[in-house]
C-alpha cells in the first residue's frame, strides 16, 4: 500500500519490556486500514488482551481465540521505538488518555498503521484495565511518525 513497500522479508528478534523476546518474520508490506472501522481491544492492567472486536481480528491476522490472553505487545513492530510504548504506559498508569501513531505487526509479518487512543477503565475509582481504540491515520501523519521513530530506534 505504501509506495515505499519493498515486500522484503527479514527475520527479527523482538524484545519486550517484560524481559521476554521472540523471533518473527517481518514483511515490508502495508495492509490498508479498513474504511469506516474502529479497531477495539481491552486489556487487563498487565496488557493481556481480554476483548478484541472483529476489525482487530481481521487486521491483526490472528484468530480471536489466539488474541485473548495474549499480551498486546505481540502487535509491536520492530520499527516502533521502545520509548513510544514507555510513554504510553507512563501516561495511562497515571490515569490519563494517550494518543499516538503506531505501526502494528500482523501475524503474517505485514504491517498496518493506526492512530491509537488508550484510556484506563476506571471502576469505582480503581483502574481495572485499559481500552484501546484505533482509527485510520492520514498519510501525512504516518510519514511524520516514520521519520520521527527512525530517530528514536
Amino acid at each position, binding site marked *: 500500500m505504501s509506495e515505499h513497500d519493498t515486500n522484503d522479508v527479514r527475520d527479527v528478534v523482538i524484545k519486550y519490556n517484560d524481559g521476554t523476546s521472540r523471533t518473527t518474520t517481518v514483511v515490508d508490506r502495508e495492509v490498508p486500514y479498513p474504511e*469506516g*472501522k*474502529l479497531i477495539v481491544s481491552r486489556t487487563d492492567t498487565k496488557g493481556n488482551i481480554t476483548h478484541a472486536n472483529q476489525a482487530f481480528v481481521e487486521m491483526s491476522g490472528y484468530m480471536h481465540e489466539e488474541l485473548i490472553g495474549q499480551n498486546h505487545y505481540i502487535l509491536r513492530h520492530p520499527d516502533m521505538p521502545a520509548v513510544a510504548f514507555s510513554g504510553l504506559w507512563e501516561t495511562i498508569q497515571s490515569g490519563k488518555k494517550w494518543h499516538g501513531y503506531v505501526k502494528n505487526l500482523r501475524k503474517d509479518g505485514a504491517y498496518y498503521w493506526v492512530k491509537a*487512543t488508550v484510556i484506563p477503565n476506571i471502576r469505582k475509582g480503581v483502574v481495572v484495565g485499559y*481500552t484501546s*481504540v484505533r*482509527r*485510520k*491515520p492520514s498519510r501525512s*501523519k504516518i510519514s511524520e511518525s516514520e521519520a520521527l521513530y527512525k530517530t528514536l530506534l
Partner: protein
Amino acid sequence: MPLNLTVSPDFAPSHISGWFIFNTWMQRQLGEGIHLELYDSFDAQREDIKAGKYDLVYANPFDASMLVRDLGFKALVRPLAKADETIIATNADSSIRSVEDLDPGCQLYTTDDPDVNRIAMIMLEAADLDESNTQSHTVDSYVIVARNILKGSADAGFFLKDAYDELSDLIRSQMRVLITSEISVVHHTFLVGPKLQERAEEIQKFLIAMSNDAKGKSVLDSMGLQGFEEMTEEETEFMIDLIDTLID
C-alpha cells in the same frame, strides 16, 4: 407530580407519533403519569437534562456518557440491531470520490447531533481535515443537510445512517456516499434517573418483554424499533470508555 421523559432529537420525523404512543404505553406499565417532551435542539435538551428535569431518557451515546458518569443515571436497555452509524455523503455529480478528495476549506453541512458529528470528524482525520481547516454549517435537520448537498453549497454532509436511509429515493439518488462508519458497539440507550432507580429492574423487564406481545410490538413498530435488549452496567461502561477515546 408526573415523571418526565425525553428522547434524543435524532429520530426520524415520521416516528414522532410513535414516541407519544410509547409514552402512553409506558404510563400504563408504570401506573404513573409521564410527560413526554421532544426537542429540535440537542443543546437545549442537554441543558434541561443537566438541570435535572428528566427521570427517563432515550439518549444518544454521547449524552448517555454524561447521563451515567455525571448525573447518576442507569442504562437499562438498548435497541435491538440498531447501532448508530454515520455517513458522509456528497453530490452524485461531484468529482469527490472519497474523503481524501475533500480539500482544506471544504464546506461541510451538519446537524447538531453530537455523535454523528464526532464520528464524521474522526473519519475526516484520515484526510488531514479537522475543525480548523473546514467550514461547518449547522442546520436543523438531515433533510436540510441533503438539500445543501443537492444544490451544491455543501462539499459534503454528515448523516446518521438511519436518517440517511429514510431520505426519499429521489434525494438519495442524487447523492454519493463517501464513507459509512462500521463501529457496531455505539448505540442509543434507555436510561432512568436517580429518583427511579428502585424501579429500574421492573422497567428493564417490561422494556425487554415489549417485543413479545402484539401491543408492545405495534408500539415498537411505530418508533421504528425491533425491540430492546438488556444493557449491563459493564456494557454501558465499555461503551462510555469507547466514546471517551473518541473525544480529544
